[in-house]
């Protein structure tokens, strides 16, 4: 879920909520650290 807040002319706020490309709300998988990625590249990726 992404939020974008703007202020209208009469000082009221308005928030756009968008979900496209925002995933399911679950936490994204943590990015693999470079050293792990390099090690995986050396030994080849395992199939899940």
């Amino acid at each position, binding site marked *: *879920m992404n939020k974008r807040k703007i202020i*209208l002319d009469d000082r009221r706020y308005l928030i756009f*909520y968008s*979900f496209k490309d925002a995933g399911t709300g*679950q936490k994204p998988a943590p990015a693999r650290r470079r050293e792990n990625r390099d090690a995986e590249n050396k030994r080849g990726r395992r199939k899940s």
Partner: protein
Amino acid sequence: MSELRWHPILEEWVITATHRQNRTFLPPDDYCPLCPTKPGAFPTEVPAEDYEIVVFENKFPSLRNPAPKPSVEETGLYKVRPAQGICEVVCYTSRHTGTLTDATLDEMRNLVDVWADRYRELGSLDFIDYVLIFENKGRDIGVTLFHPHGQIYAFPYIPPKPQRELESALKHHNRTGRCLFCDIMDEEKRDGRRIVAENDSFVAAIPFFARFPYEVYIFSKRHHQSMLTFTVEERGDLANILKVVLLKYDNLWGMSLPYMMIMHQAPTDGRDYGHYHYHIEFHPPNRTKEKLKYLAGCETGAGSYINDTVAEEKAAELRAAEPSTENGTFLRLDG
């Protein structure tokens, strides 16, 4: 003029908001203020050509921040306070026609996330003690705009009905050591006749004590005080059971059933409300397809409701309505 006036007989606040007399009233479709602003067309409340869900401060709020100074001086008997709070409008979709029933499951799931976010953000404000998420649907309820939308009132105090629920829940907890709402849900499940639908995380029922013929409560099976502790699965299950109940309502008589939908969560005043329990209430005014239940002399004057029906029969009607849960109330919509 806008202020809180104390009702010393009922011991509750009354909100005066005289500017609301001038709010937009059933405008033609081309001038809907909740639609996106199309190029060359009149500017609506939403300065964008499209949107998924938008939330904005109500142009005609009952409560506002900062609140204007009250227009009258208080006396020893008549207390007055600024009507400080926030009133938001939640536009469910950029599509002008249709209702929340037409939302896809994904859209409903997104709305659940928005509701949770608004509860968290508004509830975190130091002057907000209670966040009420609700929807008034249909001309018979008195809506002034037909674009699918709900509202949120962030109060500087706990309103009387949630306050009464909190007190009875605390009394029950002190007496039994158990949650009043968990016990109600258990009793409804044990009896079974008033259950309308069920999934892994929620139960929908017309409870034993219903005051309106088709008054459905949705209870979380787990003992939550608010949406903030829902798991991802529970948020999905809430979207699912909401869709089931709304479809049943509209299929009951083949018409879009008016209702008030009200979400009750714990106050946000920083106190512990572990004895309270998250739930949603639906109050449709219809007692038949053509006839409405009015809050007349007995209800308004005595606060005592007369229900012309019994919950067991009305729940059976809703179970039979599509999507049918007649042969077991457990139903999960897909897609």
